[in-house]
């Protein structure tokens, strides 16, 4: 009977060997993808005893810090209204916002060699603390924007305040907002809320540009010598039919023949369909690409861009901004800066400094765009039309809903700041008031450099 025992012994040994091999498979072959899963909270559980790097505003005020008793650190956010922007990093709820985009630095593993990470983190189990990130947010500006939004009782919208010369983002506000300190209590309601409070609208929400696109169409037309600011368009007040719905002028003009400047002022789309037809699809697409509309802005924040970049619609729809192209307020801010600042589009910048492993601070250098999109003559022709602020409507995808845009820069002669506001469910009076208030602040604030050369004292 001995050969049964030998065979059984062999069978058991083989099966145990198979078990060991399978463990090796899960460990090495599938290991990295398993550990990267969203439901693996280990990366953020470690942060309960090893502090995550803090996030600071430009003036050093902390926006996110790790506090609490040793071994039970929690993440605290002193400015809850910034939650859609800053995001959260939690073992329970995952990671979002700036916390996600800068996770490598904040957690502490960016810039360290694989061998060092293996030795200190895996073998010694003594990972170093995370490193700090300073963003370009100016809390004074942010407070002005937030107060303005609250006083105007804005329910859903976004504001971007960008330095025209450098592209630094000085204020980003999103409504509705939430409090990242209260995620544990409110997670269920936040994720099922149809108004999407978790969405960071300035960088992540795509909207139809509508009238906000027309200044750029105008500039492009002037660039190609197709348009003339003094010419009148006889049928300027004709409504444009979009999917069976007529789109009339924004405000009723005194007469039916308007110049391009007046068309912008009264929000009449018809002249721009003519300009669009003259320019043609390929020119428009080239323009969109130059303005950066077709790609997500490369900043250290989650960003999006319009999903479909092959334009199959009519040129008329494309030119009046009611076609396939959708933009975030950030896209519009950088394009407005191009119009304001002599035709060169700045690269948006959000990170001011990053702490290096040797505890020194490094200011990241970004590639800057130097392509001249519009000639200076075009800019000097179009910019004054926007200088006092420009309000535009856009029909949203949902039937009947209009969104309102506001674009502006100040001071007009040597712009320091670009302001972009979007209000969902457009209220022209509200946005005009808010926009003018912000432009006045931009006039008064002398700390930023002007984009036409002189002035500025800040960093």
């Amino acid at each position, binding site marked *: 009977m001995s050969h049964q*025992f030998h065979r059984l*012994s062999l069978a058991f040994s083989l099966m145990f060997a198979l078990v060991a091999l*399978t463990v090796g498979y899960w460990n090495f072959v599938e290991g990295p993808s398993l550990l990267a899963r969203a439901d693996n909270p280990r990366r953020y559980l470690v942060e309960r005893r090893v502090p995550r790097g803090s996030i600071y505003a430009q003036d050093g005020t902390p926006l996110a810090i790790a506090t609490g008793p040793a071994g039970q650190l929690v993440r605290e956010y002193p400015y809850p209204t910034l939650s859609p922007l800053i995001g959260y990093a939690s073992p329970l709820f995952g990671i979002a916002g700036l916390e996600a985009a800068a996770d490598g630095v904040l957690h502490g593993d960016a810039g360290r060699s694989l061998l060092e990470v293996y030795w200190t983190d895996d073998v010694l189990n003594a990972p170093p603390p995370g490193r700090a990130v300073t963003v370009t947010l100016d809390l004074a500006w942010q407070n002005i924007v937030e107060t303005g939004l609250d006083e105007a009782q804005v329910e859903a919208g976004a504001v971007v305040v960008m330095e025209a010369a450098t592209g630094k983002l000085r204020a980003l506000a999103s409504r509705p907002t939430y409090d990242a300190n209260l995620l544990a209590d409110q997670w269920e309601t936040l994720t099922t809320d149809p108004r999407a409070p978790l969405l960071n609208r300035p960088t992540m929400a795509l909207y139809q540009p509508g009238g906000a696109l027309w200044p750029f169409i105008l500039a492009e037309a002037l660039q190609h010598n197709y348009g003339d600011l003094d010419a009148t368009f006889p049928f300027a007040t004709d409504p444009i039919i979009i999917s069976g719905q007529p789109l009339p002028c924004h405000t009723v003009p005194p007469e039916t023949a308007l110049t391009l400047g007046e068309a912008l002022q009264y929000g009449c789309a018809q002249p721009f369909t003519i300009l669009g037809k003259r320019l043609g699809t390929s020119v428009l697409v080239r323009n969109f690409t130059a303005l950066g509309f077709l790609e997500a802005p490369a900043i250290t924040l989650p960003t999006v861009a319009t999903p479909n970049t092959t334009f199959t619609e009519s040129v008329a729809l494309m030119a009046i901004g009611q076609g396939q192209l959708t933009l975030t307020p950030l896209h519009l801010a950088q394009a407005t800066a191009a119009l304001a600042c002599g035709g060169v589009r700045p690269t948006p910048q959000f990170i001011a400094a990053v702490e290096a492993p040797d505890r020194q601070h490094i200011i990241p250098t970004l590639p800057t765009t130097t392509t001249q999109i519009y000639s200076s003559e075009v800019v000097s022709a179009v910019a004054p039309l926007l200088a006092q602020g420009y309000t535009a409507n856009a029909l949203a995808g949902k039937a009947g809903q209009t969104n309102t845009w506001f674009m502006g820069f100040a001071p007009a002669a040597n712009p320091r700041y670009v302001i972009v506001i979007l209000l969902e469910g457009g209220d022209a009076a509200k946005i005009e008031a808010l926009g003018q208030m912000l432009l006045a602040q931009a006039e008064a604030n002398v700390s930023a450099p002007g984009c036409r050369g002189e002035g500025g004292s800040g960093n």
Partner: protein
Amino acid sequence: MNLASRHEVTLLGLASAFMVLAAATLGVSNYFRFETYDWEIALGVGVWAVCAWVAFFFARRALPRHDPYLLPVAYLLSGWGLLLIGRLSTGFGLRQMLWLMVATVVLVGVMHLPGNLRWLRRFRYTWLLLGLGLTALTLFFGVNPSGMGQELWLGGFGIYLQPAEVLKLLLVAFLASYLADRREQLFEAHTRSAQNPKPAVFPTFSYLVPMLLMWGFSMLILLIQRDLGMSTLFFSLFIVMLYLASGRLRYVVMGLCLLFIAALSAYLLFDVVRLRVEAWWNPWLDPAGRSYQIVQSLIALAAGGLFGRGFGLGFPGLIPVAHSDFIFAVVVEEWGLAGAIAVVGLLAALIVRGLRVGLIAPGIFNQLLAGGLTALLGLPALLILGGVIKLIPLTGLTLPFMSYGGSSLLVNFVILGLLLHLSNAEYQKV
């Protein structure tokens, strides 16, 4: 002291050194992580050491020629398991420690039983019916110590026993005894010999009946209780015993086919089985709901790396019920692939030594008993390890010696005692 005893002392000494080092590591980890001193760790190691060396002392006295590998390996596994359970939960750790003490006492008792185990062989029906009766009681008086889930335990006031564990032992004894007595009659019909030039395919049915009946009763009770892990174990055990007794692979093949058919019908008939198989086949579909346990187990396996996170420094508590079924995932996360290979190696050593006992034991009954008892250790180990690493669907079995579970530990130590007995048997007057 002869060579075997010296080997055993060395092995037990190495096991004790491992326990002390592991406990010290855990103490240091806990201190740095939570700034606490855990005196229960020292208590656990102390109790374990006393149990192990006392058992060794009595084993040397009562069974002078017993196999030197079985006792140290079993104690090493149970000690490692004790530390792991204590790391997960002090309450469960202290309970497991108490059960270890009881199991050691029972082990010493088993080692002092009369040498030839004739009483086990003679009264096979009595023992088996006793086991069946106890298991059948769970149909009426069954409870679950955690308050929810399948009611497979008997007991109260904090002490619970799972009769199915005792039943599996008694079933092995019954099968070993029956097959030893009826072997020739069963298998002569299809053994080629001078009197029987044309062998039949199947064994003589009339002799098969009592065995099938007894086995059938066991399966019935288990299926009514929906204890599918135990049912699979009993079925596989039956196949292994038949194979050992007959030496014919056809029983293994037939048995596997029957097992497949049974599994298929169970999948089609029972929701519990279908859910388990679906969770096994594609756990990524519902990682937050049904498959949470297996997905977290796989993530824990991946988090281990080569040498593990370090004892006390991982996050195995993320796996629900980690202290019983998923103790292996805890080992892999904190001890890495090295720890996994160590555990698998120890279990394999246990099985190989146990089968060797069967090889050298005098008499068919002793051989079959040793083989069956070893299978009782090896099959649950393979089934639960396979489930934890997603090789096969999860079954509710426990890892021998390591998992939390009083009745499981107790019965496994009885098996150890019987194997030690059998390894000594060739030197006894039968």
